[in-house]
């Protein structure tokens, strides 16, 4: 009995230990940008993000102008009691808690005396978020006192656009797919099998091939650059998978329930809205999450259908434009990336509890 208990606690330790290790591995990249998004541009470029933790490092205590010492840099020199050659000094000479570094070259350089000490975190700022979220000009005061005016990135409008794109692009295909899935599963009509196979086959068509024809059709309907256009595009591209997965679920619902309803004289439409939809909530919710994430994170379809008009720009386009415009403006990229993650995370956490059953319908039985 005792051995069993020990065994069990070792087991628990093993299980939780491995799990925590994996979770940490998964978390590190996100923590990296989260921390970085609060750091200043210069800090991000010159020191790693984990330096925001208190750590031991070299702190400069004194700078010496080598020209004042009139040193001969071609032979070993003695500075502050440390003797070394020029090359050694360039690499840094350590003696106990002191380090001597020659910064620069023989002609214009200086010698730094550094001491090892605890470096406390600091210099975190919310400016990055402010610059990313607001659309107006923003004045930023740098550490050295200079003031700089920059154009904000106006994520607030992009977030609104993304929501306007993503919510209908999630609900409309699910609605259409649910009707179709019900039709395929519980109605008899000629060509049922053919159309269903076509649906499954279309799951694999890469959407890139549709860009030119769809854009051309949309041009005829003057749908380019409109939200309606992109809703339709996402609906079209998302339907095969939605229909296929919802079919898997809806076709597995207990036949007796439906038959009972039919006997009571209910119509297909009534059964669908009153019975099937409520019963399928887990499947609908879980697919909603995936479709929402997919649409929210889409860049290509938005770029082609919505075009580069700033009024309809979505978050991913905004983010990509920061990558493109400013090269390595890490401080804005990290803040922007984090802002763009927030809504999908909220949606995920809100719908998570429906995730228990759903996607896997049909396969549970194995």
């Amino acid at each position, binding site marked *: 009995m005792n051995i069993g208990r020990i065994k069990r606690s070792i087991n628990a330790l093993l299980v939780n230990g491995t799990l925590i290790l994996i979770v940490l591995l998964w978390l590190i990249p*996100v923590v990296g940008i989260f921390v970085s998004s609060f750091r200043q541009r210069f800090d991000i470029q010159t020191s*790693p*993000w984990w330096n925001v933790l208190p750590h031991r490092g070299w702190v400069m205590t004194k700078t010496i102008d080598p020209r004042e010492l009139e040193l001969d840099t071609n032979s070993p020199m003695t500075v502050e009691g440390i003797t070394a050659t020029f090359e050694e000094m360039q690499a840094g000479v350590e003696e106990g808690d002191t380090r001597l570094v020659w910064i620069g070259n023989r002609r214009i350089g200086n010698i730094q005396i550094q001491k090892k000490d605890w470096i406390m975190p600091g210099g975190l700022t919310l400016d990055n978020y402010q610059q990313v979220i607001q659309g107006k000009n923003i004045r930023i005061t740098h550490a050295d006192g200079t003031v700089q005016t920059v154009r904000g990135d106006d994520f607030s409008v992009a977030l*609104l656009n993304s929501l306007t794109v993503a919510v209908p692009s999630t609900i409309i295909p699910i609605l259409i797919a649910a*009707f179709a899935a019900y039709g395929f599963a519980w109605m008899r009509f000629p060509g049922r*099998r053919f159309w269903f196979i076509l649906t499954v086959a279309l799951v*694999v*068509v890469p959407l890139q091939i549709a860009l030119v024809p769809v854009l051309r059709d949309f041009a005829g309907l003057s749908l380019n650059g409109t939200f309606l256009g992109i809703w339709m595009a996402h609906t079209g591209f998302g339907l095969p998978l939605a229909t296929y997965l919802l079919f898997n679920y809806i076709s597995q619902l207990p036949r007796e329930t439906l038959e009972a309803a039919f006997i009571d004289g209910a119509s297909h439409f009534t059964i669908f809205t009153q019975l099937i939809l409520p019963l399928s909530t887990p499947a609908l919710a879980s697919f909603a999450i995936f479709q929402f994430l997919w649409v929210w994170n889409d860049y290509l379809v938005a770029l082609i259908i919505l075009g580069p008009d700033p009024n309809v720009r979505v978050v991913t386009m905004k983010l990509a434009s920061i990558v493109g415009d400013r090269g390595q403006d890490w401080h804005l990229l990290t803040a922007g990336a984090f802002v763009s993650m927030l809504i999908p995370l909220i949606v*995920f956490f809100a719908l998570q509890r429906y995730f228990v059953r759903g996607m896997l319908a049909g396969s*549970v039985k194995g």
Partner: protein
Amino acid sequence: MTKFGQTVEKEQKSAGKVVAWILRVGLAILIPVIAFFFLYQGFLFLRAGNAPKWVIAVVAIVWGVGGVAILYYLFNKLVESLSPDWTERLQPFVFVGPAIAMMIWFLALPAVRTFYFSLFGRNGPPALPVTMIFTNPGEYFTVVAAQFVGLSNYAAVFTDRLMLSALRNNIIFWIGIATPLTVIVGLLVAVLADRSKFERMSKSLIFMPMAISFVGAGVIWNFIYEVNPPGTPQIGLLNAVVVAFGGQPHGWTNYTAIAPWNNLFLVIIVVWLQTGYAMVLFSAAIKGIPEEIIEAARVDGATEIQVFFRIMIPHILGTIITVTTTIIIFTLKIFDVVWVMTGGQFGTDVIATQFYRQSFINRNSGYGSAIAIVLLLAITPVILYNLRQLREQEAFR
């Protein structure tokens, strides 16, 4: 939908069939058309208005979603008002028709068009008016034939060195390594989380990367792979670790000295992104295994590993197959991560990036289309497998 042309018959039944078909096709097209018309009118109205942006957004969402729902309702009412016989004939098409019409428009027709283009040279098929087929068929077909190249684009796909390395990457690294890795890690997390006290939290955190766009993922992973000159502080985590152990810092994804293994660093990103998906599905499947079976095995003295392999795995085999196939489809189509991280340079090209470059940047529409069709064909075995599975399910007997 081509069926109705052939039925010109004497029986009343057949005549009814023809009418039924016309009505069915009509319904399938009419619902989306009317839906579109109403939505579009609403948009014109909205665009004319000067309401604040958020009001427009909310109205647009309600209008779009509500409009579609109401249309289904109205059409169903219409069909149900007919005689029961007709209701039965037409109702399935109210349900299924709009989905089929949309899929044909957005995916099936473009796929056929792409195949047609793949048989032509760089500039695609000649841009002649379609009416010419009837007015001047001789010239039409001569011009088309002149630019017709047959399967030579396909021959090029399988001889082009860059294309071959793209195929290799797709098969070895993306299907061969990324897919099983995602499945295994996903399964491991699902099993561990199931028996852990931190189940909810750990699952949420593993799922989190799925909420990140590829553009965002590119930003995030730059903080891992970023390289600075030796001797300066490394701001990329991986290089910081490597340097701390006395190694040389590298750019990893573009470290061609280890090619093609630099692809692994892209694979890691995708595994990180997709494990959440696998985990969620596995986790739900594990929850579906009756507790008694597992307990019974434990009482019989089975070790945890035996329980896992002899009971859990067989029970969730269906899910494992579903997850694996969806991830294979995803990795075959993989584009964004590669495009964002390396642009296909350094030997990391995949089929989709080659297609994109050839079609849209080099404007070689024939070759680009052929690549897309090869991608489609590559996925076909996966579909066939899936269809076979479906056939085994009772719903389709």
